[in-house]
């Protein structure tokens, strides 16, 4: 059990819904993989049509909706999208995602900071998606965001934790939760993030575009749990050379 955004959660695996083949998977993930937080892109919350239903209809009552501002091009749009999202979902959790470009989908740090300042004042529980930048993370912490969400590697690339040396200082220095978002492609990557001390991970592409999203969500849930347990126990130090179980000194001195 851990606390984040004023809620107590059992699962440290958050899931994005944007790339899912079918929204009915959300309910299955909630019940079968124990996932409690679902990120929903406001840009895709359409009204019900004859052929497509609103994603919100598929999210179980007990689950938490994290409104995602993806598609916002600057802080003004992000704030507007967050407001629309809160109205539509009745959730004040907002993932601030403002992309600098559509080629790499890297977050725009300046605009993100500005949006977060406004949204915190507006009473949102703010979760900014950021570069693994310690200084930015510290500023955001001071502003009063609930957590920071640094990327592991660029969105959708499945490359895993590509910048451990930048993520580690954030995990060490920041007191609010750190959620590794973007780039995690395999359950082992998620376990690695948790072993490093991340508080949670957010996955979309790796689950949604797999051959069996539900099974993959279960695999990720287990990996996240395993990684967290290992972190709590404390990982053993790595050694450059083999350590004899009977140290050599015994023989020499003996």
């Amino acid at each position: 059990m851990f606390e984040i955004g004023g809620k107590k959660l059992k699962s440290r695996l958050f899931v994005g819904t944007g790339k899912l083949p079918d929204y009915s998977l959300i309910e299955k993930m909630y019940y079968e993989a124990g996932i409690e937080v679902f990120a929903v892109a406001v840009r895709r919350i359409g009204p019900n049509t004859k052929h497509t239903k609103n994603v919100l209809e598929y999210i179980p009552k007990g689950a938490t909706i994290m409104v995602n501002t993806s598609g916002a091009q600057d802080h003004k749009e992000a704030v507007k999208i967050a407001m629309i999202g809160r109205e539509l979902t009745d959730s004040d959790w907002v993932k601030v995602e403002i992309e600098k470009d559509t080629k790499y989908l890297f977050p725009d740090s300046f605009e993100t900071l500005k949006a977060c300042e406004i949204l915190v004042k507006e009473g949102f529980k703010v979760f900014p998606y950021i570069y693994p930048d310690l200084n930015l993370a510290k500023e955001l912490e001071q502003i009063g965001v609930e957590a920071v969400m640094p990327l592991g590697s660029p969105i959708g690339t499945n490359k895993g934790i590509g910048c451990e040396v930048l993520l580690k200082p954030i995990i060490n220095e920041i007191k609010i939760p750190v959620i590794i978002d973007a780039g995690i492609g395999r359950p082992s990557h998620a376990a690695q993030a948790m072993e490093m001390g991340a508080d949670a991970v957010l996955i979309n592409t790796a689950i949604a575009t797999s051959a069996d999203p539900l099974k993959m969500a279960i695999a990720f849930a287990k990996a996240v749990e395993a990684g967290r347990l290992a972190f709590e126990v404390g990982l053993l130090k790595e050694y450059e050379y083999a350590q004899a179980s009977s140290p050599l000194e015994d023989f020499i001195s003996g």
Partner: protein
Amino acid sequence: MVSFLKEAEELFEEYKDYAPSHREICEIIENKEFLTKEDLAKLLNVSSKEDIMLMAKKAQKLTRENFGKVILLYAPLYIANYCQNGCVYCGFSSRKNYKREKLSFEEIENELRKMKEEGIDSVIILTGEDRINSSFEYIEKACSIATNYMSEVSIEVYPLFEEEYRKLSNIGVVGITVYQETYQREDYDKLHPFGPKKDFEFRLNAPERALKAGFHEACIGPLLGLSEPKKDVLCAILHAEYLLDKFPKAEISISFPRFRSAGTEFIPPYTVSDKEFIKFLIIARLYLPRVGIVVSTRERPSLRDALIDVCITKMSAGSKTTVGGYAEEKDEDAEAQFEVEDRRSVSEVVDVIIKKGLRPEFTNWVKGVKSV
């Protein structure tokens, strides 16, 4: 602006007879994260089925990674077919003697209502090119009405001035589609003997003006068959790249409609086989992994369905290409701008997408971001 055209021209000339070996093709698609412009020019000459299938596999992977399992759907709404242009190949050409129509605002509402009943929630408003009969104000009002009905409204009208695009952006229009027809100036000039469309550069710069004015999306491409297809494809891909570099936050899409008969005598100088067409789309994906790829109802259902698995991100469904074709039954063959090959209803297209394990989606942008 036109520097990419010169670059495309030089690349095309340098590699037009270059046939890459199987090994070189594998090298390009397996080991490189991003293709170079030279790779792009070389791949356009690939001809073996095995190599194209290999490229398709990589294209499919890139599509799923970048776009997930989502196919965006839209439908066109032709609100007027008046046109001052003399394009020699077009069904809307002013040379063609048929009934010109323009929907009243009430009729536009009826059309939108009917579209909505069919389950359409994303629309592209189209007109011919005639600033008198389809004035900017007329288009603006039509778009304004459409934003009340649809989650997403785009336009495919004559090239506008930046200020006009800004006005449309402010009322909630998010996307522009503008086909250059051909990127080869000389051919363009011959194909467009008179009318405002004759201005090659004003058309070429239209997506740039729209994006500058606040549009989120631009869809571009040539009409394949009017000029050397490989060259036009190369130009279009570099055009998309140019727009991406200049407007990194915009979503750029590309489309390669093939020429279809439209009741004119015109016989296109080039025909593009299915194999070539598929190859072009795949290459666009390999070179620009995050660019949207659109396939219209000009293509037959089986081909469109096959492409859903590989590289398409957006497609039209339930399209009527006659003015007022949704609310009222019309003879699509006699009155349309071009022949529609895929006449399936929205439900039928949606069913195919779902059966393929993908999610059909009409909403790409939160409604009213600009107006809240």
